[in-house]
């Protein structure tokens, strides 16, 4: 409960800070608050707190909360410099903090209404944030597109929840799961349609193929800082919510499993194949993030006892690499106002720290050992092969080979380029320090996966 209060309180606090005209205090307060949140989660471990029958804080939600709080700390550090010149720093920060509340609810709900609330609380601030670059036409387009399509998805979700309620008479996920086991007196049609609608809505939120069409445009149009937020924390929320739904309810039905497996394979394949043909780095990263979402969905499909750890680990590896790469992209593209791959030409000479971080982040996303991304993919492939889906494993492997292709396009660009292009990029010392920290974490997490998982899940 205190995590929920803390996050909402932080959001309100940052609004008040605007009124009281103490904007300088917002950033330290938020960071302290988020660290406090991590502390709360750590101290709550093993308590299994139930909040009014609506949410349960057991091990897995707490682990996901630690993860997204940590990523949020990095994100706020990244955003601090971006919003430095703008007057509306506190609006943005409070919107993000409120959407964190939504993420928190998604990690821990046990009630279908909370699922809907979580999705909405998460999404609505992000619709606004996507359009926060008011004078940019693409940013407006992104917000509008995201809002329209997102509203449809929310509608589907609500409709699905109602259908399921109509069939089973319950909103509680555990009850839904247990009553769906007994086939007597239940309208199967209603149930199937209901679950499919929920599945599609969640697939939309996770930007899974074929519900992914919004993602590249929105990711490209939104300011880079917001894109980083969407591709990390929003994704963690959507996936944590989906994992909860699937692990409790949907895994009882093998036919949903097939649909989901299909979605996963399509997402991996389409995301990576289209990313390979992109020349805009932001768009490339957007498509690659679709591919990663596919990998995680695949990990959820082959549910086993280790799945929560596997997904958690994948999300950690992916989010760290993703936030690092968007951060570097933001700094690089600011210099020339260009997001093309050619903007990265000669980066190794222009800023070794940025280039080094970017290379480690990309290598990790490409799944090159011993970086974190390798074990993330490895754990998932292990579960996939264990279930006997060797063909799917081969497809996933070939798709990640395509991933290597486009990540290396970027890496090669950093090493190429002529001398006159090499205008050094000014990077604040603190930013450098944080980027190096992210790189180190990516290596440590990769070399000692046991250590990290043991630290969180004990």
């Amino acid at each position, binding site marked *: 409960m205190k995590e929920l209060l803390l996050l909402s309180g932080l959001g309100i606090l940052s609004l008040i800070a605007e009124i009281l005209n103490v904007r300088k205090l917002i950033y330290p307060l938020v960071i302290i608050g988020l660290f406090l949140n991590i502390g709360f989660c750590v101290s709550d471990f093993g308590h299994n707190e139930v909040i009014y029958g609506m949410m349960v804080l057991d091990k897995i939600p707490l682990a996901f909360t630690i993860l997204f709080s940590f990523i949020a700390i990095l994100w706020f550090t990244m955003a601090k410099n971006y919003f430095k010149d703008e007057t509306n720093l506190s609006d943005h920060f409070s919107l993000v903090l409120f959407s964190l509340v939504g993420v928190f609810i998604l990690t821990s709900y046990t009630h279908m209404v909370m699922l809907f609330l979580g999705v909405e609380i998460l999404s609505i601030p992000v619709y606004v944030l996507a359009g926060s670059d008011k004078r940019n036409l693409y940013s407006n387009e992104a917000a509008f597109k995201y809002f329209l399509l997102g509203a449809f998805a929310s509608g589907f979700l609500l409709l699905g929840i109602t259908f399921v309620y109509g069939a089973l008479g319950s909103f509680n996920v555990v009850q839904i799961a247990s009553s769906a086991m007994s086939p007597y007196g239940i309208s199967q049609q209603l149930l199937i349609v209901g679950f499919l609608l929920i599945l599609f809505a969640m697939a939309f939120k996770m930007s899974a193929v074929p519900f992914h069409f919004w993602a590249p445009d929105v990711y490209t149009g939104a300011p880079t800082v917001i894109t980083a937020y969407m591709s990390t924390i929003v994704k963690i929320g959507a996936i944590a919510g989906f994992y909860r739904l699937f692990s409790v309810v949907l895994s009882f039905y093998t036919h949903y499993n097939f649909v989901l497996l299909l979605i996963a394979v399509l997402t991996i394949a389409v995301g990576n194949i289209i990313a390979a043909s992109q020349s805009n780095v932001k768009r490339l990263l957007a498509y690659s993030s679709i591919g990663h979402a596919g990998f995680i969905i695949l990990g959820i499909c082959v549910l086993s006892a*280790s799945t929560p*750890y596997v997904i958690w680990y994948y999300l950690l590896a992916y989010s760290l690499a993703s936030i690092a790469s968007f951060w570097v992209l933001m700094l690089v593209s600011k210099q020339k106002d260009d997001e093309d791959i050619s903007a990265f030409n000669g980066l190794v000479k222009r800023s070794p720290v940025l280039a080094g971080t970017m290379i480690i982040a990309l*290598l990790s996303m490409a799944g*090159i*050992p*011993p970086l974190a991304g*390798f074990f993330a993919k*490895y754990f998932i*492939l*292990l579960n996939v*092969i*264990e279930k006997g889906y*060797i063909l799917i*494993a*081969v497809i996933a*492997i070939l798709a*990640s*080979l395509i991933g*290597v*292709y486009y990540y*290396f396009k970027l890496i*090669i660009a950093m*090493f*190429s380029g002529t001398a006159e292009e090499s205008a050094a990029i000014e990077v604040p010392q603190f930013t450098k320090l944080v980027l190096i920290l992210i790189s180190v974490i990516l290596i440590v997490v990769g070399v000692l*996966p*046991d250590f990290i*998982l043991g630290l969180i899940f004990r």
Partner: protein
Amino acid sequence: MLVFLLLILPVVFVLLTLIFSDKQAKNIALLGSLATLGVGLYAFYQFNLNPTCSCFVYHTDWIKALSADFYIKVDGIDIILVLLTVLLVPFIIQSTAGRDIKNPKAYFSLILAMQSALLGVFLAKDALLFYIFWELALIPIYLISLIWGGEGRQRITFKFFIYTLFGSLFMLLAIIFLWIHNPARNFNIYDFYKVGTLLTAQQQVFVFIAFYLAFAIKIPIFPLHTWQPDTYVNAPTQGTMLLSGIMLKMGAFALIVWLIPIVPLGWQLASKYVIILSVISVVYGSLMALTQHNFKRMLAYSSLGHVGLIAAGIFAFNLQGIQGSLYQMLSHGINVVALFFVCDIILNRMKTDTMQKLGGIRNVSRVFSVLFLIALLGSVAMPLTNGFVGEFLLIHGVFQYNTVMAVFAGLTVILGALYMLRAYQSMMHGETNALTETFGEITTNEKIVLGGLAVLVIFFGLFPNIILHVSEESVKQLIEHVQNAAVLVKH
């Protein structure tokens, strides 16, 4: 602990190289490689006295969830590859003396990192650890070729990287597959050997193909070799030396230790096809070498032919074949590094390695021509040089398997002599022309490096037993295991 020291010493010197200035980089790296050489030679000596010493094993938990261990161990087979690695790296580093290298700190630390990863590949006895080192070895060499390579390096290194990664991903698939079918649920190589007897013929063939892809690309074996000539020619000299001298031995070594003993039945079913491919490699590589005008490109193709023979000997999987392949890996490493250094000396002075444009260098530089000749004779398997022992054993091994194959495999010696001597003739003999007049005598440093390698060529030609004796016991055990296991599956 000795074995751990072997692995960690280059890493320590990577850090030292990065700390000190650019001027000192080469010396520190050389010191590091010499220290590693010392440890390696001591390990080799110790192994002769007491192969079961506990200092040759380092075993600790790594990822408990998967029961993957950090398990490295010296045995009779990998000690030879370790010897090769520690012997060559000092020469490779010293070969940069007097050359202008941009950003030397990065260059030498990458070479040392590469050495550590290579040693890891040879020493790892845990499949996941092996895989990690295998991939880790790829990154330094990729960066070396990408940053310090020649014209068109981006495209060429990219092809190389994607090619090798493609193969290794299938190896990963096979490793996971074996892990799942392993009752002990670990990555221990000795448990993997037992898994082999539990798999059906079809599963064994699947694992065989997946591993074969990874290893055959690395070696490379026809038709998966297309990355090789361009990469060799394009990489900086030290990169080429690492690639051809040590890195391709990773593939051959893995065939002996990680492929055939794990799926003996898969090997039995597939051996005739893979031997044919290896022999095609031999003939193709040698014929292509004959048609080349550039010395470096010719060496790249000749390397393809030589390793084809090594692979053929391994797939025959008898005592002579394996012993020969191990010996030839060592010899080929030494010879090819010497020859690429010769090429570097010529390129550095003449700015071209087109053989027709050169001639009469012998008249200008006597020492150079003698040392070049020794390295060359080693490569064409002249008796009393190291190449002879290896190739003789290899052809003997293949002969036991199939006579026709042995005849074609033997072509490598004949054709090798043909193109090598022809190259020597056109570059060293004849009239000195306007270009080669400026060649001059080679520097002391170059004499040391080339001379040292030439001494090794003759030394290993005269005393092959030092090596063969060490590996014999392990090889016999391995062959016995494969024969027993293959019989077990059948019944």
